[in-house]
Structures are given as C-alpha cells and as structure tokens.
C-alpha cells in the first residue's frame, strides 16, 4: 500500500472501516504469517503514517512529484519522472518495485486534501497496476460532489451585488470557518434577514436576525447514508433537552408544513422509498429500527473509466516555507470546540491539549531560530495570525502545520478563546496547503499544555516498546533470542486458577493512536476534565492514555504509540503501600479502587511504575450543573476531591454481565464483557475477557509468541499485556526501515 498524504485510517467517512481492515491485515497468526506493507509519504505524522513500514516526510507540495515519479515508475503513459532528492527517490524506487511485484494486490491512496488532478493520476496508477475492480472499487457518489469554496464565494458575490435579501443558514458556521479571503461577516451584514439554524448560538448566529435552536443528532429523528450507500435511520436517545428543531423539521416548516415532526417525516419518506404499506411497512420499519440500517441499501458497485488525458501533477518547485492546514484530530472543523472532552484529549503525536500550535520540524525550528512555545507571526497571502511554535519530529522541513478548529469567539463557556483561528490564514485557492508563508519571531512566549513532556524511550525499548521486523519474528533462529529470566517471588502466589480472571490484550500492530478509547473511557467512567491550567501542572485525569515515543533520528523517526491504562498487576505495587486498604485485589484479578475508603495519601501513585493513577487534587467534578447530571453514567461512582482513581477494567460492565448471567443461570460468555475502550476501538486493538477460559479470544491472543508485558523485570505480573509491534520493511530498501 502506498499512502500519499492520506490518513486513511483516521480521516474521512471511510476511516473506521479502513482502520479495521488495515489492522486485520497487520495481525499475525500461525495460520497467516503475513502482513501488508505500507509506504506513507506525508508532511506531518498522521495516524496512518505512524503505522507505516516506510515513512517519508515530504512537503505537501512535493506529494505531486512523488506521485508523478510513482506513475512514471509503474508505467502510466504520458507522465515523465521528475527529479527527486536521494531519500525520496530511494523511497519511490522501493515502493514502485513492491507495487509492480504485487500488481493487482496493491493500492495507491491519496488524501482528501490533495487536488482532483492528483486523485486522477492516482487512479491511473491503480489502473496501470491492474488494481481496479480488485483493491479499488467504485460506487455511485453518496453525497453530491463538493465544490470547495466556489459556492460560498458565489454567494458572497451575490450578496455584495444586492441580490440576496433572505438567507437561511443551517448547521454552518461560515463566519468562523470561511477562508480568510472571503469576507462572510460583512457580507451577511448586508442581507436584510439572516436566519440561522444550529446547535449553538455561534459566530454566524451573532449577526443573524433569527436563530433557530437546533436539535442534537442524539435528540433527533433522521436518516443518513454511509460511504458505501448503506442507509441508516437515526433514532433519538433522548427528547430534545432545549426543544431544538432538526433540519428536517425546519425545511418542512419552510415548505409550509409547520407541524411536522422528525419522526413522521422520516417514516413517511421511507414508506415511499420502500414502496410498502400497512402491516408490511410497519413490520419492515420495526426491523429497520431494530437493526439501525436498511437492509441491502448499499450502492451496487459500478465501474468507472478514466477520461481525458492524464498528466503529471507536479508544479514547479516553489521555494520558501509551506503552510499546511489540517483539521484538528478531535475538534475537526471547530464545531466541536465547546466540548471539553475533545479539547482535553491529547492531540496525537504532540499530546497538546486546549491549544493548537504552529508545528515545525526540529531542523526548521533551528533555521527559524525558534524553540517550542515561542510565539511567531504567521503571514500568508497578506493575512497574519500569531501562533505558538511546537516542534514535531518526523515532520517535513520547511513546512508549518496549523490545525483548524481553534480560535472560536462564540463557541461557549469551554471553547471560547482556545488557540488561534487558522481559518483566517487560509486562502480559497490554498485550502490545505500553500507556499509563500512568512514566519516572524516575536519576543512573546505562550504556555502550551502537553500531557507528555518526554518522548524518548531512553534505551528502555525492551521493557516498554519492543519492536521486531516480521522476518526476525518468524525466524527467530537467525538472531540470538532475548533471554527471559524466570522471575521468582518470595511470597506464595495467590491461586488465580479458579473463576473468572479478567485480562486485557492490546495489539500494537492495530493501534494507530486515534484516541477513541481515551474519550470512550472518559464518557463511560465519569472522568472529569480539568482544564489547561491543571494539565500544565500535570494533573490530567484520563484513565487510559496513548503514549507516543520517537525513536531514531529526529528527521525520520519511528513513531510508536501505545495505550497505557492500569495494568491490574497481580503483584500490584500500589496495594501494599496503601495505609487504609483503599486499593485492594479481588479474586478475579482486578485491582480495585475503593473510593469511599481512599484518604488520599497518593502513595499508591508514587509506587505505580506505570503512573496510571489519577488524583482529584481539587473538586474537579461539577456536581451542580443540572444538564451534566444527566450526562453521567449512573453505574459509575462520581469521585470527589481528594480521592485517587484509575482504570477499573470497566468493573460496572463486568458486574452487569454477571447479573445477566446469574439471572440466566449460566457463565459469563466470552465477548459479553466489553470494556469501553475496547468497544470504541475502530481497529479492534483492545481485547478483554476471562483469561481462565482457554477458548476466550483474549487467552488465545495472550498465548501468542508476540505477547509482552510492560516493565516485565519488575515482576508486577500485569493483567494487561501487549502484542509486540511488528514491522514489515522491504528487505531491498536501503533506506530507513524503522
């Protein structure tokens, strides 16, 4: 697989599906000792890029040259190979050789941020490789083709020409997120009546005459289509808390049907669409509601042919600094800016929270004479913003990456004034990247909060993040094996051979560090957010975190990501030091935290080698706000000030399963207990279950050769173990192979 500036496991409508499919092809079993090989070229480390066997950091503008080179290499007619630097050409050579050797079993993917011409060329490459119909399939478009900002520009022109007197805006914050060269705000002021419909009163509704309170999707009836065309019926979980109206209802009202409600509208549509009536429809409707999706509604695969001439896409190399715009990993376009969970979830790679930054590579920082947290002035196409610097190893040189979604002014209590607004830099001709950026250092510095200050493994790879190449793993006889000492304990071992014994297995070949587990855990376990100031002093509360390490040289490091939560050690160091027995072991191997008993000496945290314990230094949980009371999981204790907390392996879910099993007079079956992190993991990296049951999936995984436990020499006997990260580098490739 060759990914050209494509974060296909994390970005776009297909990300979750691709994330899982990709991980499936990276899993090694005795029956399938094979894995795919990923080449990734990108300007800044993405989730997908960190999983690559051969990652190349290149400027976004140079992706086109790489694509041309690959096209020329695989024999796309009419494309000549451009000259590339040594590193890039070695990478291209290896990729091309592999692509050719695996014609029909390979794929080249390019990202959403790349141009249409680039996509056409990539399609030609896949065509030349005979991948069409095999690894590349087509369906009819689900959504109308995006027009970029042409539509918005046309609208603003019309308004400025006085042609618009009534404007209805729904679910779009165009005042905030229009490119900097389109002045939406002053245009809207010229419209006689602006009606805004949306979840929040935001920057756009500020200038509108009317604001219609929108309903959240969890409060709404509606329908949608997945990327492959599968239709899903959207069902509300709760009646609208603030009597919001859905878009369907607003549109119906505009067309005269003021009394319509979402449910009736959706049902009426599907009655027509399915063409059934009466009892037959009711039955079908119930099945759809039960399943959530409409059966066999996926679009049939169709074929497509390339028309027109395929040409090289590379433009003459432009010197100088390049700016790359990226949607923020959690806030995306900024509409989620008022969500504290998403503000506080550490950004992948940088681990920054509550801010965006101007990210540069270590070499570029040196050239610019800046260090992390220095404030610089970014000027692009005559527009300027101030941004703090953050240094990202593995980013392309001469590239400044800024994330969209910050700098909101009317997001609400949580999101106002967080970070800087990168939309104002964006030009409508350079939505995702452009050259000609100027960076001016100022004398200011800015405090950036990160949850991980140190990203070097300090030579502790063996104990924390061992890696192996697939070849070494399959043929260990070629290398002297790592001698494992049998570590003994002075004390008799507790007999854990009876009953349920809970354990977890995390596959580092599947985890791409997407953070879904972190937020899922936070939602499930009533974990508070603490805010930037508290993160700055090291008091974030996440029970599971994704540790990121850079290994190798700063230019092209290997990037490791590893989810870490309480390991539920059988020899738990935390337990013996608690003076009041507030953290104790149960006979099912859980390291339990008894909040009621906790006095808060914090000794347990000091003695935890994994530092996964979290302390309520203040009363972090807001117990007053009424709407937040509804948000909490009633099965999980809400912790007060002065109490230690940590991952429980979702003990409430274990107990729920136990009650169900008891009621039905049976054992808890494998797969019945799914921890929140496991449930949310798109690539199924996390597996939880009863390790006493040899047939359980977790037991089977733990029996594999590639299992390791973190900090094994301490003999803590963690119940959470990992699968070693395997890489599958091209043995012919002389370049860096992780």
């Amino acid at each position, binding site marked *: 697989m060759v990914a050209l500036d494509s974060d296909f496991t994390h970005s776009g409508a297909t990300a979750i599906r691709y994330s899982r499919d990709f991980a499936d092809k990276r899993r090694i079993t005795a029956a399938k000792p094979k894995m795919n090989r990923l080449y990734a070229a990108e300007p800044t480390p993405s989730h997908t890029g960190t999983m690559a066997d051969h990652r190349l950091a290149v400027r976004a503008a140079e992706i086109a040259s790489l694509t041309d080179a690959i096209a020329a290499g695989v024999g796309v007619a009419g494309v000549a190979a451009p000259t590339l630097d040594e590193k890039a050409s070695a990478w291209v050579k290896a990729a091309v050789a592999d692509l050719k050797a695996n014609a029909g079993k390979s794929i080249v993917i390019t990202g959403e941020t790349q141009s249409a011409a680039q996509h056409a060329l990539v399609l030609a490459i896949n065509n030349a490789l005979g991948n069409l119909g095999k690894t590349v399939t087509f369906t009819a478009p689900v959504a109308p083709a995006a027009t970029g900002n042409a539509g918005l520009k046309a609208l603003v022109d019309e308004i400025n020409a006085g042609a618009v007197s009534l404007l209805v805006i729904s679910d779009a914050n165009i005042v905030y997120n229009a490119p900097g060269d389109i002045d939406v705000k002053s245009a809207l002021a010229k419209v006689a009546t602006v009606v805004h419909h949306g979840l929040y009163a935001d920057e756009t509704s500020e200038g509108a005459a009317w604001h219609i309170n929108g309903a959240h999707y969890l409060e709404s009836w509606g329908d949608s289509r997945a990327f492959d065309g599968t239709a899903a019926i959207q069902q509300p979980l709760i009646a609208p808390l603030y009597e919001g109206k859905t878009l369907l209802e607003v549109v119906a009202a505009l067309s005269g049907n003021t009394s319509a409600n979402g449910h009736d509208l959706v049902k009426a549509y599907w009655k027509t669409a399915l063409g059934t009536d009466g009892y037959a429809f009711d039955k079908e409707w119930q099945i759809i509601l039960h399943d959530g999706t409409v059966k066999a509604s996926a679009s049939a695969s169709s074929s497509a042919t390339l028309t027109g001439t395929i040409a090289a896409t590379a433009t003459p190399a432009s010197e100088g600094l390049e700016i790359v715009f990226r949607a923020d990993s959690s806030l995306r376009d900024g509409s989620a800016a008022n969500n504290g969970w998403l503000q506080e979830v550490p950004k992948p790679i940088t681990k920054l929270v509550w801010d965006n930054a101007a990210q540069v590579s270590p070499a570029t920082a040196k050239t610019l004479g800046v260090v992390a947290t220095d404030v610089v002035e970014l000027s692009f196409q005559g527009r300027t913003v101030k941004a703090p610097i953050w240094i990202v190893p593995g980013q392309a040189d001469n590239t400044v990456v800024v994330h969209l979604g910050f700098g909101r002014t009317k997001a609400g209590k949580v999101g106002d004034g967080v970070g800087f607004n990168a939309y104002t830099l964006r030009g409508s001709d350079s939505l995702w990247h452009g050259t000609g950026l100027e960076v001016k250092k100022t004398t200011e510095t800015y405090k950036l909060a990160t949850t991980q200050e140190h990203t070097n493994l300090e030579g502790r790879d063996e104990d924390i993040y061992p890696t192996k190449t697939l070849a070494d793993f399959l043929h260990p006889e070629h290398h002297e094996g790592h001698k494992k000492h049998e570590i003994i304990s002075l004390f008799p071992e507790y007999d854990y051979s009876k009953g349920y014994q809970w354990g977890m297995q995390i596959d580092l070949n599947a985890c791409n560090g997407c953070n879904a587990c972190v937020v899922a855990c936070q939602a499930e376990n009533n974990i508070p957010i603490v805010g930037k100031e508290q993160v700055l002093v*090291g008091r974030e509360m996440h029970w599971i975190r994704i540790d990121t390490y850079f290994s190798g040289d700063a230019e092209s490091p290997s990037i490791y990501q590893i989810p870490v939560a309480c390991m539920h050690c059988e020899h738990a160091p935390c337990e013996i*030091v608690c*003076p009041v027995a507030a953290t104790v072991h149960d006979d099912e191997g859980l390291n339990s935290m008894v909040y009621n008993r906790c006095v808060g000496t914090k000794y347990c945290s*000091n003695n935890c080698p994994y530092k996964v314990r*979290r302390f309520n*230094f203040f009363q972090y949980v807001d117990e007053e706000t009424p709407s937040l009371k509804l948000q909490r999981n009633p099965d999980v204790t809400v912790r007060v000030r002065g109490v230690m907390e940590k991952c429980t392996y979702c003990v409430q879910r274990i107990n729920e399963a136990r009650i169900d099993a008891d009621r039905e007079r049976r054992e808890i079956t494998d797969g019945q207990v799914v921890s929140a992190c496991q449930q949310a993991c798109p690539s199924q990296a996390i597996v939880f279950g009863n390790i006493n049951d040899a047939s359980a999936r977790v037991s089977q995984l733990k029996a594999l050769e590639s299992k390791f436990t973190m900090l094994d020499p301490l003999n803590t006997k963690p119940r959470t173990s990992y699968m070693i990260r395997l890489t599958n580098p091209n043995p012919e490739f002389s370049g860096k192979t992780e």
Partner: protein
Amino acid sequence: MQSSKQLKPPVTETYDSLLAPGQSLNSVTAKISDIILFPVLKTPLGWIIGFVAAGLLLMLYLYSLATLFTVGIGIWGINIPVAWGFDIINFVWWIGIGHAGTLISAILLLFRQDWRTSINRAAEAMTIFAVACAGIYPLIHTGRPWLDYWFLPYPSTLGMWPQFRSPLEWDVFAISTYATVSVLFWFVGLVPDLATLRDRSTSPIAKTLYGLASLGWRGAAKHWQRYEVASLLLAGLSTPLVLSVHSIISFDFAVAQLPGWHVTVFPPYFVAGAVYCGFAMVIVLMIPIRRWFGLEGLITMKHFDVMSKVMLASGMIVTYGYFGEIFYAWYSSSIYEYYLIVNRFTGPYAWSYWSLILFNVLIPQVLWSKKLRQNLPVLFFVSMAINVGMWFERWVIIVLSLHRDFLPSSWASYTPTFYDWSTYIGSFGLFFVLFLLFIRFIPMIAIFEVRDLVHKTTAHTAEHEDSGHAGA
C-alpha cells in the same frame, strides 16, 4: 533579668570544660531560673519581637492550612508523577531535626556523657516541637484530611482495619510513640526544676501553676530515687526510638520499588542524616540563645566542640550513603537505577543534587579543624548549611526519584507554589512560637542536672587538690 546589660561585656569563652570556672550550686539555680522568674510586663523586647514575628508566621501557617482544607491539596505544586513534594520533604526534615534531642537525652544519658546536661533540655524541647511540626504534614498531606482517623486501628463500624503492610501505617505508630515518649521523658525531667521554680517564684499565679505542674515534688530522697529509675526507664525506652523512628520513615521510601527509593541502606542512612541535621539545629538554636541569655558559663565551647564532632561523624555516614547510592546504580546494572544517578548529576534538578553535596559533604569538612569548630560564626554557618543540605537531601530523594521514573512518557516536573512555601515557612512559626514560650516559661537548662555537674566537678577538683594537683 538583665540581658541588655549582659550583652555588653566581652564574653570569656571556656574551651576545655563543660562549665565555666566559678559556677556554684546557687549561681546555677539563680542564673537559669532568673531568666524565667521576672514579671510578665518586664519581658525583654527581643523576646517580644521574636514572638510577634513567630506569631505572624504561625498565622501564615494557619491561613495556608485553612485554604488547604477548604480548597484542596491542589493548591500545592504536586502532580502525577510527583505526588509527594514539600509536604513529605518537610515532614522528614522536621522529624530529622527532632532526633538530636532524643539522642542527647536518652542515649547520652545511658552512656553517662556529662556534656549533655546543659543542652539536653532545650534539645528535647526542640525534639517535641519539631515532631509536632513534622507530625502535622502527614495529616494534612492527604486528599481528605478529615478522614485521617482511618489510619488508627480502632474497632470501626466500617469493619475495617488499617492496612498493616503499608509503611505509612508503620509511621503512625512510630511517630505517635515517639511523640508520646518524648513528651513524657521531657516532662518527667522537668518536674524537679518546676518545683524549683515553684519555690523561687513570688507571683501567686506562677506559684500555683508551677506547683500544679511539679506534681508535689519535695526533693525527698525517695523522690530522687524514683525519679532516677523513671528517667532511666524512659531513656531506655527512648533509645531504640532514636533508631526506629527514622528507620521506619525511611521505609516509606525503601519499601517502594521506585529507583532512588528502593534502597536497603536507607534506615541507617536516614538515622545518621537525622542526627546530622538534628545536631545542626541544636547548634543553630544554642549559639544565639546562650548569647542573648548570657549562658556562656553553662553552655561552653566544649559543648559545641563535642556536638561538632557528632555532626562530623554522622555527616561522614551520610556521605558514605551518597557514594553508596552511586555504587548501587552501577552494581545493580539496572538501567533505571543507573538513569536515576545520571538524572541527579545532569538532569533538570541537578542543581539541587550538587547543592546537597556542597552543603552536606563539602562545607562540613571544615569541622575537622578544631579552631574552626570553636569559631561560633563558622559553626553557625556550617550548621545552617547542614540544615539546608539535609532539606535538599529529602528533596533529591523525593522529587528527583518521582519526577523521572520508569516510563519516560510520565516524566514531568515539579514546581512548588506559594502554598508549598507558606506551609513550610509557616511551620517555623509554630516551632518558634512553641520554642519561645518554652524559653520564657520553662528552664531551658536542666537546673538540677547542672547542679549535679557542679557538684561532681567541684568534688573532682577537691580530689585533685587533695592529691596535690592544684590549679585544675
């Protein structure tokens, strides 16, 4: 008393004896009790100024504690991974300060070291006040201090006992026993002197209060005999405590598996460190006090000389410990232990490690010189350096071990806040308020013991005179 007058005349120092020449039984009693028995309104200005200053610090302390209880321990700079900071540093530091008193009063009593007599009372008082200051920290460092009573083993309706495997639980017993025995020992030792004050005071209030406190002491032979037995017993009880308390406190660290904490030499190393800074604190307190109250005749340069030697010896044990830690890091061939030392030498807090070496290892080497040992400004400076150095030692052990442990991902830094400092500096307020009250109302030197010493030395001289060795 006439302290202002006494400050003026040049002091004649005594270097080779525990008593200046010319001390008689009466002069000793008068000298010591006169410091206490004068009208309240004539309290010297210096004392009042000191008391007000200490009182202000105490107010700062109370303010800090009130904020702590109402807002939460987040007001401090602690975090994850550095979940212990100033709270435990100061706890161990204060406990260490206390050790000299017990060592002087108990062990030196058993070893019949006469030089202890003039300084043991004040040192013991220092012990008790330091233990009080220390004991507060573990109580307030918890997240929910109102539940601290759960540390105690009592038949609870919760059906829960404390968790006896935890070193923090051992601390509960170690500190409470230590505090109890120290107070008892101190009070028992006070009884004869309180009776002296009762007899010498003229104010009816003082007479009544000292009378109540002296428990009917009449100086009968029976009283003295029982007193001797009681103090010997208490000394015997206290002696193991000198070793056990700081050993147990060192277990707070040694039992954990954190690099920098998991060290088997900690118990003796901690005890030596405690004696080290305890004696330093005694010297820091005694140098000004003897000057202000004109006690040069009772606390002589000989005392300082002997105390300096104790400091030097315990300082060398501590230094051995520092080298030991470096050796273990190499010998263990554990990358974590090894990194700990690298981090101490060159990490972000290397300045504190090198300060520790400067204050605890290098500066005290001047004590090898007898001349410098008996130079009070130098001795005062060295003792202050040791107090600071021992504080840095606890800082190095606690903060430098916690801030970079096993997983580099959890490495972080620790910055003390205003409240960290105010709960530290404020605790001096508590200490000095108590100490100033002590020197104002209780004989700071054991009258009867010094009288005993006077008796012995005069008898000794008489003997010498008898055998013809005049002029001793």
